[in-house]
């Protein structure tokens, strides 16, 4: 198929960006979206034009490196990551707009690449269980009921891609936060730090410049790992409990 691509190009963090229009031919529907961009980049380089910078690594939907706004939708029209989107989701002749994640807390580095280090700093604030190497009891010593174990696992599958932030009109990262708080909070091992974790992570979230949550739900709708919206209710509940405990 043949496609018209309107792509955001920006030379560096401080440069002003703008859209450029390119066309690609001979795209097969079995190609992934990023393979289509690889092909574009090969063509651009042949013409002496610098390739479009975009992030990806595993290309299996698990590392969370990739992430593009595709015609206004975070990761495009399917519930998946950009790297797992295939060209069969598009039709011949279509015009596709491609932009980076847009959020104050995710500044653009170049073209479609953004800086998501704010997520790491949120984890640093409390997204862990404090146990030094070698200090662990036998793994079988703490049974975890399957229901909790499954809920913990479901929320632990967050890949830190940032689509929830990009999709949210407030650029809030509450889904990402809620997923981590639920992952650790469902487990017996996570109880000791449960209160401080949620308070510290939320404080860091606000400090990074992410917006507040007004229950719009775009985050969960765009999340490639289908992290459920109710993790945000869980987070708010934990926050209330923690506030009471402090008093």
């Amino acid at each position, binding site marked *: 198929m043949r496609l018209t691509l309107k792509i955001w190009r920006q030379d*560096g963090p401080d440069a002003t960006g703008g859209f450029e229009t390119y066309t690609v031919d001979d795209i*097969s529907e*079995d*190609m992934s979206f990023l*393979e289509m961009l*690889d*092909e574009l980049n*090969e063509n651009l*380089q*042949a013409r002496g*034009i610098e*390739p479009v*910078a975009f992030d*990806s*690594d*595993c*290309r*299996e*939907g*698990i*590392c*969370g*490196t990739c992430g593009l706004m595709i015609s206004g939708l975070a990761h495009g029209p399917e519930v998946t990551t950009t790297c*797992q989107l*295939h060209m069969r989701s598009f039709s011949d002749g279509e015009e596709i707009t491609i932009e980076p994640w847009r959020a104050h807390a995710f500044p653009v*580095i170049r073209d479609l*690449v953004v800086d*998501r*280090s704010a997520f*790491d700093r949120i*984890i*640093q604030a409390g*997204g*862990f*269980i404090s*146990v*030094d*190497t*070698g200090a*662990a*009891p036998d*793994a*079988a010593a*703490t*049974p*975890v*009921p*399957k229901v909790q*174990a499954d809920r*913990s*696992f479901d929320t*632990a*599958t967050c*890949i*830190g891609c940032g689509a929830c932030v990009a999709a949210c009109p407030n650029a809030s990262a509450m889904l990402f936060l809620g997923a981590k708080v639920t*992952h*650790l909070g469902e*487990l017996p*091992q*996570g109880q000791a730090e449960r209160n401080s974790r949620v308070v510290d992570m939320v404080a860091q979230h606000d400090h990074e410049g992410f917006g507040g949550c007004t229950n719009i739900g775009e985050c969960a709708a765009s999340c490639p790992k289908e992290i459920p919206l109710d993790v945000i209710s869980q987070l708010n509940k934990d926050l209330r409990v923690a506030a009471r405990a402090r008093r």
Partner: protein
Amino acid sequence: MTELIDGLYREGEPIADSKAPDGPIETRWERHQFENALVNPANRRKLSVIIVGTGLAGASAGATLGEAGYHVKTFCYQDSPRRAHSIAAQGGINAAKNYKGDGDSVYRLFYDTVKGGDYRSRESNVYRLAEVSPNIIDQCVAQGVPFAREYGGLLDNRSFGGVQVQRTFYARGQTGQQLLIGAYQALERQIAKGTVEMFSRHEMLELVVIDGKARGIIARDMVTGEIETHLADAVVLASGGYGNVFFLSTNAMGCNVTAAWRAHRKGAYMANPCYTQIHPTCIPQHGDKQSKLTLMSESLRNDGRIWVPKNAEDCDKDPRDIPEEDRDYYLERIYPSFGNLVPRDIASRQAKNMCDEGRGVGPAIVEVGPDGEEREVRRGVYLDFASAIERMGRESVESKYGNLFDMYERITGENPYEVPMRIYPAVHYVMGGLWVDYDLESSIPGLYVTGEANFSDHGANRLGASALMQGLADGYFVLPNTIRDYLAKGPFEPVAEDAPEVEEARRSVTDRIEHFLTCDGERTVDSIHKELGSIMWEYCGMERTAEGLQKAIGLIRELKTEFWTNVKVLGSNDQLNQSLEKAGRVADFLELGELMCIDALHREESCGGHFRAESQTEEGEALRNDEDFSYVAAWEYATKGEDAAELEPVLHKEDLVYEFIEMKQRSYK
């Protein structure tokens, strides 16, 4: 040193000492830890360690050394340590817990790993790996890794390719992700405490060696292009595997050999570089614009049955219309006791054999055969769940494999609940890597290597679910207890930022960058990488011959010249420049590919993942030659002349002695 052998390499002194302890195998590690010097807690803050790579092997080491109080700097090329390639591991992690009471033990895991590695690994190392494996599970559970559990709340296990006990712990099909998130969080905790300094989007491009010791690295800030010098008392490489030398592999796009190769050029030996693992259950290639291959966990082989049509005429039929009696469940037929669970190398080679025979399925792809003629071959075999669905019900199949089925459907557009999956082998893992002794120290003092980047533990073939085990064993339990013996001698003499060795290392980095940006040729980096990949896959892939390897060496040398004179890299150094990053990696892959072929050519036997067509049994099985080849091939970097156009490496042999396990010809019949 000998004369040039086969016009390609020389043989040097054998490796005298691997520091592996002696005595009863059960007590070696404990004794060794005791004998290794301790570092007083007050001194640790004065000692600095650089860790390149924050996958399982690097993040776990970083967290543990940080907790101990050392001053740690960690580096990764991604934007966050959470994205390392370890995240993609699906199937699980082995540990000798024997929670299932099915006769597992440390000794059995040791035995299985040595046997699975086709008797080409070091006994002491493998025993230690099995010995610390239970601690890994304890550590991970304490960190909050949500392993699969049974209804009673206890941990669940499954069995995995090549073994008959259930010792594999898993987290649905996302075990690597969950383990890495655990290690990542432990690392972030240390970053918050200030014991670890993290440098994301930084690529190591050179090693700094002073007075024969590793003392630092030169790294490029991939956002600003700044070339930075980082100095320390010791350096650890945890930079992962180099499967991307084949261009198409299941590795992440950025996986590379650069960190390891730069160290190799500075004197670290590269061991068994030709030992490559080809994974049998990957999604077949869709066309020539493919950028990478996708693996599906081989746990699928527990319940799926592999077959091809008996008759070549049936190959383009709808598989559901092929009656039972016209199907060849070839693994069950050839290996009745292991069936679909034979080790990876056997499953892979048999799939290739079936397709070579003309009984492959899926789209026919044009390829150039060993005779140089173009031909059309179907490269795929069926992995069928119809009987599993009948036996267990669709729901159980879904709960066990749902995410893998979804992934398959997303990529191919076919529904595996209805139509059998198509699979084909792909490069997946490298057993080869930098040579290390029992302490995980390379041949450069003060340079340690962990995880997939080193060669230890897996011999010529790795068992499923053992790489995650090794990465975490190295990082959490082994390295922290061996590197202290070295650090106890420090802090070492401070190094000046303008020391001649530092300046030389920086110059080598900037010269290379300058060359790429001004070469102004015709070829893109990717086009050269693809060409290298197809040479490697054809001649140094699943089946290797002396003739093919010799040809490949010639082709790679020509391609190297083409690369250095005709590559085109646009843009500049002072900004994010992904073509520039790739150019550096491909430059090193080209040299590595040459060494892999030399190694494969010199090893005139088949073992594990290395299959030499000249060395097979009458039934077409790999035939080892223990008399002549039971050694580790550790290669020292050397070139013909100054300009590195041709390698002329020096081979150092480390003899493998089996005191506990009797060497047998592997048989899975």
